């Protein structure tokens, strides 16, 4: 009974759908405020039903399969991608004493499953019979190889500091002091996440002005809805992972609970939108130079710093 509740309601299918509807509306409203506009306003109270109508419309449109595409790649990837994006939800502690799989290799599971998602999207670009999708697919492969190195190096730093890979124990052992030591690692993790989720200034694979829409170009109707669901599920998992690893998870100032985790995730979402509204896009060669000349050496230095702090400052 509890098993069915976990799969269908929380943190399963209904939770992911509600999160997708909420976060799309949230992004549009915050971006509109920075643009001196008002975002969606007339559907529901302050526009909250707008995304619900958008998704319902996408489900009823005709789903076109163009002539000449590879049928296995084109039609099957939109089914596999959301499933793979939702799986890491089982590792994260959502509320005090509530985690679905309490394994002692939690950090490793998160890193591997988050990292494998973009390679499926490359196959969509390869399978549509379109020059622009192919260019988008090649770009996503280049970007992921560079950004994932610094992603897992900085995700390992709290595990090194606390000598455990269990996510619940990492969240329980953190305090103000350890957050201060882990701060450089948190900033490096945030920048790597911007690269993995393809958000500005790294939104090179779906560059609207250069290659129409990258690997999303040939998708319509239900296929597009499933790919977008995979993208929003990735947002949920990466933000929750960041807060749990570096900033204490569900612990709050006066009380513990799910609501503290949620508020900290929203603060990082606002930071991401503010970076989107004030920065243009980078060129592919500049992104490669930035990743390999600055991010990866800094991540290695960060590990040295963590080991030094563990030895001499925390005194273990």
């Amino acid at each position, binding site marked *: 009974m509890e098993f069915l509740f976990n799969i269908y309601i929380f943190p399963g299918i209904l939770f992911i759908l509600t999160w997708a509807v909420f976060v799309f509306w949230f992004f549009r409203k915050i971006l509109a405020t920075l*643009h001196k506009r008002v975002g969606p306003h007339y559907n529901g109270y302050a526009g909250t039903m707008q995304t619900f109508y958008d998704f319902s419309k996408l489900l009823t449109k005709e789903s076109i399969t163009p002539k000449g595409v590879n049928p296995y790649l084109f039609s099957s990837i939109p089914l596999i991608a959301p499933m793979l994006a939702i799986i890491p939800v089982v590792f994260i502690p959502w509320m005090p004493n509530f985690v679905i799989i309490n394994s002692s290799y939690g950090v490793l599971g998160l890193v591997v499953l988050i990292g494998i998602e973009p390679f499926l999207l490359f196959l969509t670009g390869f399978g549509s019979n379109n020059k622009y999708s192919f260019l988008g697919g090649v770009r996503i492969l280049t970007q992921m190889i560079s950004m994932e190195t610094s992603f897992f190096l900085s995700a390992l730093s709290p595990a090194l500091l606390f000598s455990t890979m269990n996510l619940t124990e990492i969240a329980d052992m953190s305090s103000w002091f350890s957050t201060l030591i882990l701060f450089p690692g948190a900033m490096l993790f945030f920048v790597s996440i911007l690269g993995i989720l393809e958000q500005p200034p790294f939104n090179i694979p779906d560059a*609207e*002005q*250069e290659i129409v829409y990258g690997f999303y170009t040939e998708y319509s109707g239900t296929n597009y809805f499933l790919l977008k669901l995979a993208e929003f599920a990735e947002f949920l998992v990466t933000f929750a992972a960041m807060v749990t690893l570096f900033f204490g998870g569900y612990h709050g100032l006066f009380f513990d609970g799910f609501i503290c985790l949620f508020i900290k995730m929203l603060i990082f979402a606002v930071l991401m939108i503010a970076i989107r509204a004030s920065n*243009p*896009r980078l*060129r*592919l060669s*500049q992104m490669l130079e930035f990743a390999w000349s600055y991010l990866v050496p800094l991540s290695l230095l960060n590990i040295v710093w963590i080991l030094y702090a563990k030895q001499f400052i925390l005194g273990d």
Partner: protein
Amino acid sequence: MENIKELFEPFNTQYIELYKENWLKVKLESSSDLLDVARVIKNHGIRSIATVSPTDFIEDNIFEMNYFFEDLNTYKNVWLKVDIPRELSECKIDSITPLFAGANWHEREAHSMYGVHFINHPDLSWFIVSADYYGKFPFRKGFDWKAHEQNLIENMNTIVDDLYDEHGSNDKRLDGSKTILNWGPTHPASGPIRLKVEVDGEEILAIEPDIGYVWRALEHLVEEKDFLGSIVALERICFMDNTNSMICYAQAVEEIAGKEITDFAKMMRVLLGEIGRIVSHLMGIGGFFNTMGLMTLFMWAIDLREYFLDVLENYSGARVATASIEPGGVRYPLNMKTLELLDVAIEEYERTKDDFYNIFLKNPLMKSRATKVGIITKDEVHDFSLCGIVARASGVKTDIRLDEPYAAYDKIDMDYMIEENGAAKNRLDVLFKEIAQSISILKQASSDLRDGIKSQIYNPQKDHLVKIPKKLPAGEAISRVEWSRGELMMHLVTQEKATSPYRLKIKAPSFNHTMILEHLLKGQTLSDIPLVFGSLYICQGDLDR
């Protein structure tokens, strides 16, 4: 001008005379002297050519070719004319493209529209017209348009077949990792122009622009309307800046009619022209950042632009297509509410300009992308005859409002806004500085108008229009203004007692700017195409006319 006159001593000329103190008008006897004359002119130091345009005199059975040579250093220019026979089999003349690289596309256009054959031109293929007009030379007088337009569906099938033939031949020619991408008419960043980009992976090997998707044949359209009605066609050359192009046409008509307009009308023309310039530049700044994926400045700039459109709406009734300037002055009398709205707009600009500068023009990511791309040197400006923002950002001092003042610009205090280095970022900086200069010109003009009205020198209800007769005498005139994109020049020819123009040639600045696109982008990557294209400030409306 005396030393230029001496250059023509060895050649046979019909007449040499001075035109408007900056131009020397020369007519040669025979067309075989053209290449030698061009060489002599270039060795003297005059290196740019604005345009090449034929006029069709069907009763005398000749074409009269006009060449407009300009010197961007000393501002002394030469207008050369020569006659060639009109029959298609004998309609030939030497091409001056080997000497003046900027004449390349102008000669191709003259060939496609009129049938003039240019000997030794590097690539004389069909241009601007759609495929059903290949070989029919639509601008010759005596071409039967209505008969050609009866079969619409066959014409459209000809166009589509031609496109498929081209795709087929491309597929046979290339292999491996080379391919041709169509930066096509429905691309999100291009507008209605097609760039054929030949790439190898992500590196560009060649770019060939294919234009003509907004071709409305404006030069033929004004021959069907009368002198006043042509304003409707000419204000829509490019909608972003719509007042300055009306000034250009009105000045040409007034010169042929021999009438002088009042001082009040001249100052009103300065006011309306500068508002048009600000409105267009704000859209240009927003468009530059749009090409890199950042929409925020576009939204803020459009918000500021609405205040200036309120001023135009109060004066003329329409926001964008105003029809507010006509031959004889300006169209409507002035009431003081317009000047009050202008003060509100200037105050809004002063409140927000620091935000624009600090957040966007000093943005380090934009600088790292745009500082080393699309560099145009001073020699290239002279060779390809560039003008406007593009020339001023490379250090060449050229501005028609200061070189050859028109309307009331001789009473205004202004200066050349130049930058060195000529990269994409420098063109953005020049745009921003020009907006600031236009605001200061607006303040001078509005205070001059207020003082004049208060001391009763100007009568705002009656002084705005002078009567121009409906039938003009025979003559020709050229008129140049500083449009927001560069130098706009119109050449108008009228016959005795006619009610509509006989020939109107419009020289648009974006034409020359698109010519150098391949030269700038060879060897760069795909991400640089929208950036360089957006920084050259091209509008497809005046590219195709």
